[in-house]
């Protein structure tokens, strides 16, 4: 792996850490439930991105499998939670 690529990857990783931290803070101090939900969804997506970055840093495709699981189920849970928030129920 080239130095440039490595640098970019690590930088992206740190950036993602910062972004997640920001989102978490916003979830913590959110103005309403929807805002927090958005934040949580965003955290999930950013972690997904982070998984992909780690996969690249480690040169290992295995993490994509984890990412796949997280991606699919992340949306499911977001929507389920949105349904709960709107409706007080899920099914």
């Amino acid at each position, binding site marked *: 792996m080239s130095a440039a690529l490595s640098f970019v990857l690590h930088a992206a990783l740190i950036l993602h850490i910062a972004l997640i931290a*920001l*989102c978490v803070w916003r979830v913590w101090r959110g103005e309403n439930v929807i805002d927090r939900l*958005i934040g949580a969804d965003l955290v999930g997506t950013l972690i997904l991105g982070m998984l992909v970055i780690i996969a690249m840093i480690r040169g290992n495709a295995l993490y994509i499998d984890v990412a796949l699981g997280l991606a699919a189920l992340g949306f499911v849970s977001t929507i389920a939670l949105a349904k709960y928030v709107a409706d007080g129920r899920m099914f």
Partner: protein
Amino acid sequence: MTTLLQAFAILAIITGAAFSTLGVLGYYRLPDVYTRLHATGKVSVFGVVLLVVAAAVLTPLGFGKGLVLIFMLVLGGPVASHAIASAAHTIGIPLARTTRDDLAVVQDAAPFDPGAGS
């Protein structure tokens, strides 16, 4: 070829990261949940998708799965945004700086706030 691919990957990573940043910035700076959803949707669709593209290029065996992942992201991200927005509207989260709400006309939203106490 490798260098070219790496260059492409770097570009994709930078762009993806930039979009993710943009999304989070939007989440922080836009005035209401609806407009924020416009921004946060970008993170999944542009940010992560581009990162996945880079990963698909860089890591062995990752291409097929990368494709599936992109498919999932592009399909699921907007739907999630839609669901959240719909929920927001249902529970009566107000729109900021707005002049028009066609949905409010047809829908008599029953207010429900799950955070109200529990």
